[in-house]
Structure formats: structure tokens, C-alpha cells
């Protein structure tokens, strides 16, 4: 059966949108990636026409009309097959516009309870008719708590991934950045290295080195080397100390194929990590990264706008009960998010959609040197995300990642956000910071964190 299209009149012009996929794309606030894909609205009037028409769409329609066909895409099949009707019941009869009003008025428990009843497309749709303040306010109501060696996402906390990358994976270079981050209160989300190569021996060396640091200092946190999932599986087979399995994922089967993964590979990797039983307070063993634009980059977007596809990636993530998920919002470049304004909105959309779908959502608040953005834009996004209750952000020495050649948030930025917003580290980690005497002296390294213990001499 052919689905009915949508029409909307604006100032004497009738706009016609043949299907839900097109309507979502035209309703999306402007960004360069949708223009590049040829799916963006051609005028501000067409965009508001699409937004008005979208506001009138019943949420139930999203269960009957897939933006990418069920038969063609395993992510669509996952979304439909896993939809849970009971938690959907409170909003089942609403339109997208009515859903926005409901979210703004509802209490945190009611918003949090919806997650298994929502599809990514519903979350994306409502985000498209929300302002920045709406995205912040509703996301702040969502409660998502995950556990491995500590407890992440409790109200009033802001965790930091310590990202001690080094251009050649030099163990002492990585160790120095780890220590620097610990001294600035970072590392409760994870100590996670992006390796310079995907060589399994090199990855295992970094895994062993991070595990040694964690063990010597007795840090209640988890480590991760962000290699390809198949490399991590090989490392696990060879006995490497793997806490978390990392993988970049996307919102279509095609983009995941371009990343060299599938749902079945992710399932197998998770089972391998669970079998290692390395968590002490929980069993959330997966870590995913996402980002708007990856599907277009892989030519696997099916005419769907980049923000809706990004939300679909969260359906992939939640299938595997991750400890951490973050969008790497400004990493992909200006052809997808052109400037600070587009990065700001996308970061808040991604955080909102991830949280609404029940994920422990963090954001890599970042930009590259070919984007029209700078530190001021990052300060603005970080502050907004902090108010929105972001689960974690990155901590990079001096905000400058010397391996990946982009700018993220610094250890200082994390500390500042915690101080400005009255946030704390994960409780187990905060107690450890106190035990170690961290934060008392701005020049000396506390004796208990002697660099000699981790090979720095």
C-alpha cells in the first residue's frame, strides 16, 4: 500500500511532501550535510511548512511507515522488532506536536519510562520542532545510569573520558597524559585511547599498559583502546585485558557495513567481553561512538536526513546495553556541520535523542580546523550540555588531540563545567580523588600518584 503524502500551505504556496522520509528531511534545521545530500528544504518557508506538517503527524504513523524499508535494512528490522508497546501507551495517541508539549510538561520519571516505547524516528521528529532550550530541558529529565567499575550517570554528576592519545602510541607519552588527566579530575567515564594503528600487537601493548596504570593506582574506572571491534576480539582471544569493547556505529546497515561491522559481530564481541567478567559493580561492557554525516560519507543514507540516521544509530547502541555512547559531533567536518551554530544544535539534538531513547549519552564537544568554529563555540556547547545533564564529555590535554588532529574539551574544561554547574565526578571515582589527595596542589604531584609507578622516570 502506498503511504499518503503530506501537504502544507504557507503564505499562499502549497508544499507537498510525498512521504515521511522526505518530510523529516525538509523539516530539519539547516545543515550543510543535508544540502550536500540534496534532501534539505530549499527555503525557510519550505522548512517551516514541513515542520508544521510534521507536528500534525500521529506518532503511530512511525510504526507503520519506515524511512528505510524493513526488508532492505537490518537497523530498521531491529527498530520495529524491538518496539515495546506498553511504555509507548502514554503517548500513543499524540501527534509529534502534542508529543513536544507532553515532554515539556512531563516529570522526569514519566519521560524516562518512555524509552523502550520510542523509535529513533519519533525522537528525531520531535527534536526537529524543538528549540535549543527545549532540547536541553527535556534531556535533563532523562535518567540513565550504567555501571562497570563505577557508577555513571547519577543525577548531579558529570563524568569525563580521559583521552590520552599519542601519535605513535608511545607508552610513556600516553602515561604522562593519563597522569595529567587524573590530576585534573578526569577519567571516571573511561580512560580511552584512540590507537594510531589498528595493529593487534600494538593495541594489546596499549591495553596492557592502561590496565597496569589502573591497577597500580587502584583507580575505580575502566580502560578502553578504541580499535576496530574485530581487532579487539582478536586481542581478547589472545588474552588481553579488555574492559570495554569499542566500535563506531551508524544508523543504517550500509554505514555499518562501511565500518566493517554488523549487529551479529557486535553481539559476538559483547558476549566475549562479558565472559571476561572484569566489571566489579556492573556488566555494561560496550562503548559506541556515532556522529551525524557518517551515512552520507559512506553513501548509505537512503535519502534520509543525517540527524534522523544518527538517531537510528542509537537503536543499534541500545541493543547492546552500553556503558557509554557519544556522538563525535564536530569531528566529521564542515561538509556535514558547517559552523559553530550547526555544531551546537547538532550536539544538543544528538544528546536529546540519545537520552530520550535511554542511552548513557555523552558528547565529544569538538571541531576540526577546517570548520568555521573555535573555542568560544565549544564553551557554549559544553555549558548547554552540562545544563542538559550530559553523561560525560571528553578530556584531552589542553583541548588539543595530538593524534587525531582535532580539538575537543580539555581536562580544564571538564573541571570548569563541574565547578560552574555544581556537578561532581562518579561517586567511586570522587572518593578515589579524595583518597589520593588530588586537587590540593597546583604544582606538585601527590606522592601516591608517583610517576615512577607507571614507568615515568
Amino acid at each position, binding site marked *: 500500500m502506498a503511504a499518503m503524502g503530506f501537504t502544507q500551505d504557507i503564505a499562499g504556496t502549497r508544499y507537498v511532501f510525498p512521504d515521511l522520509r522526505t518530510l523529516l528531511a525538509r523539516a530539519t534545521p539547516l545543515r*550543510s550535510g543535508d544540502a*550536500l545530500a540534496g534532501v534539505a528544504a530549499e527555503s525557510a518557508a519550505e522548512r517551516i511548512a514541513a515542520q508544521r506538517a510534521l507536528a500534525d503527524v500521529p506518532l503511530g504513523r512511525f510504526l507503520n511507515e519506515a524511512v528505510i524499508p524493513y526488508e532492505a535494512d537490518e537497523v530498521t528490522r531491529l527498530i520495529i522488532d524491538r518496539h515495546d508497546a506498553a511504555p509507548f501507551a502514554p503517548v500513543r495517541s499524540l501527534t509529534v506536536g502534542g508529543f513536544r508539549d507532553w515532554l515539556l510538561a512531563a516529570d522526569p520519571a514519566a519521560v524516562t519510562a518512555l524509552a523502550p516505547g520510542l523509535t529513533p524516528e519519533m525522537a528525531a521528529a520531535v527534536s526537529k520542532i524543538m528549540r535549543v532550550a527545549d532540547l536541553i530541558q527535556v534531556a535533563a529529565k532523562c535518567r540513565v545510569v550504567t555501571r562497570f567499575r563505577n557508577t555513571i550517570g547519577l543525577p548531579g554528576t558529570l563524568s569525563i573520558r580521559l583521552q590520552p*592519545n*599519542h*601519535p*605513535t602510541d*608511545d607508552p*610513556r*607519552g600516553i602515561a*604522562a*597524559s593519563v*597522569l*595529567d588527566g587524573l590530576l*585534573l579530575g578526569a577519567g571516571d567515564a573511561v580512560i580511552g585511547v584512540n590507537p*594510531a*594503528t589498528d*595493529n*593487534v*600487537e*600494538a593495541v594489546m601493548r596499549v591495553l596492557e599498559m592502561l590496565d597496569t596504570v589502573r591497577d597500580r593506582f587502584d583507580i575505580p574506572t575502566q580502560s578502553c583502546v578504541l580499535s*576496530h571491534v*574485530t581487532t579487539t576480539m*582478536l586481542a581478547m582471544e589472545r588474552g588481553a585485558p579488555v574492559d570495554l569493547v569499542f566500535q563506531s556505529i551508524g544508523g543504517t546497515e550500509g554505514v555499518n557495513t*562501511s*565500518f*566493517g561491522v554488523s549487529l551479529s559481530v557486535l553481539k559476538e564481541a559483547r558476549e566475549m567481553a562479558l565472559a571476561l567478567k572484569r566489571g566489579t559493580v556492573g556488566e555494561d561492557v560496550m562503548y559506541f561512538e556515532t556522529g551525524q554525516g557518517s551515512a552520507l560519507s*559512506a*553513501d548509505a543514507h537512503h535519502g534520509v536526513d543525517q540527524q534522523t540516521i544518527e538517531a537510528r544509530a542509537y537503536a543499534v547502541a541500545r541493543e547492546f546495553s552500553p556503558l557509554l555512547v557519544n556522538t563525535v559531533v564536530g569531528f566529521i*567536518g*564542515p*561538509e556535514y556541520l*558547517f559552523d559553530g551554530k550547526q555544531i551546537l544544535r547538532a550536539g544538543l539534538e544528538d544528546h536529546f535523542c540519545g537520552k530520550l531513547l535511554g542511552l548513557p549519552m555523552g558528547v565529544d564537544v569538538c571541531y576540526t*580546523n*577546517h570548520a568555521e568554529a*573555535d*573555542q568560544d563555540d565549544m564553551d557554549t556547547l559544553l555549558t548547554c550540555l552540562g545544563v542538559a545533564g550530559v553523561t560525560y564529555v571528553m578530556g*584531552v*590535554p*589542553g*583541548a*588539543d588531540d*595530538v*593524534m*587525531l*588532529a*582535532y*580539538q575537543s574539551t580539555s581536562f*580544564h574544561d571538564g*573541571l*570548569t563545567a*563541574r*565547578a560552574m554547574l555544581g556537578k561532581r565526578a562518579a561517586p567511586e571515582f570522587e572518593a578515589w580523588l579524595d583518597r589520593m589527595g588530588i586537587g590540593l596542589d*597546583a*604544582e606538585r*604531584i601527590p606522592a601516591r600518584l*608517583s*610517576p*615512577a609507578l607507571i614507568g*615515568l*622516570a
Partner: protein
Amino acid sequence: MSTPSLWRDLRRFTDARVGLGRAGTAQPTSAHLDFQESHARARDAVWSSLDVAAMEAAVAPLGLPVVRVRSAVPDRRDYLLRPDLGRRLAEGTVLPRAPGSVVFVVADGLCAIGVQRHAPAVLERLVPALALPPGPVVIAEQARVALGDEIGEATGAAAVVMLIGERPGLSATDSLGLYITWAPRRGRTDADRNCISNVRPGGLSYDEAAAKTAWLLRAAQGLGATGVALKDEMPAGALPAP
């Protein structure tokens, strides 16, 4: 050296911005302004362009045919906004056939400085280490990585090695990346390639980059593929075959 006891002592172990101290929770003024200066330099580097004549002269001693091409992108601003055009050759481009060879593409990418400085030195070490016959050196302007697929298809190459300028960072505005694609043709994805990044002084050396590329090409020839199917398991410290 003695065990470090001061925070700033950590700086001797890495070029990362460690041991900056703090002003309240923020970075002190000098560290803040150092960062802003680096960003300003990187912004300017994005707009640098490849000196094609100088590159031709630098690769001439290899004794290989040298060809110039451009992508379908008209200018730098469009290069940033239209990566699709950066993956396609300009209309009317003619390339020599070099069936079964390894074709080298020397491309500006997101910053021409690194490729200008380092690509000739890597090629000088790589070409003699190859098991397959070397094909032409194609110098490409306003190019994305996947432009190598179309070049590989047009030349009939067994493999393409693309040497391309990486996105400039704050600490390094001269990083070179190498992408190796077996049986290149349009429609290949990043999962079909192997990548070696951060080639520059202070990063991966020319010798290591050339040895790793030669190793990957030999492994690709055995496997009939590059990408996720080809795991980089080159033993540490291995030298190129004599």
C-alpha cells in the same frame, strides 16, 4: 633523569599539552594564548595549496611517469563543502594505463604542507621495497581519498597508494596519511582500505611508513584484498625485505 615530582615535568614525555598548571579551574593565560596561536596557524594551513611544479621536480628522481590531475572541485571553499566532487576526476581527465602496477597518488587533501614536505621522501623508500611493478605518480589537486579509486580503475592498477595531506592539527600542520587500496575501483569504501597516519617528524618516520606500506601491499597481494579483511600484523621492528 630523576623521577618527576612537579606536574610540569610531565611535558618531557609527550608533545601533548600536559602540565599546563591552572588558574582556578581554567588554563593560565600563557597556555591559553599558545593554543589560540596554534589554532590560527592551523586555520591558515587549511587554505594552503600544493606547489605542483615543485612536486614534479621532487618526484622526478624516481624515474616514473608523472601525471597531473584535478578533481571535479572548482575551488577550496567548494572542496570543503562538496567532498563528493573531490572524489571524482575533472571531466576530460586522461590517464595512462598501467595494468597490474602500484599507482601512487600524491594529493593535497585537507592541507598541502605535509604532502609537499614528506611524500617524496616516503616514495623514495617505498618504490624500491615493492614486490609489484611501480606505476605512475599521479599528482592530484583538490583531492579526497576516494579519488584514488577512479584513478586506479582508469589506470588498471593492482593497487593504489594515496599519499594525502591530513587535516591539520594544532601541534602538527604537516601530517601525511597513506591509504592503500587493493583492486581500486569506484564504489570502494573506507572498509576496503588500510590507512597509515601521522607520517611526519615526531610522528611515524619515513622508513616506518614505507616499510609498513610495503608489508601491507605484500599481504594484500597474498590475500587479494585490503581493508578490514587485512589485519595489520606486521611484527614490531620488522625491516623491509632486502
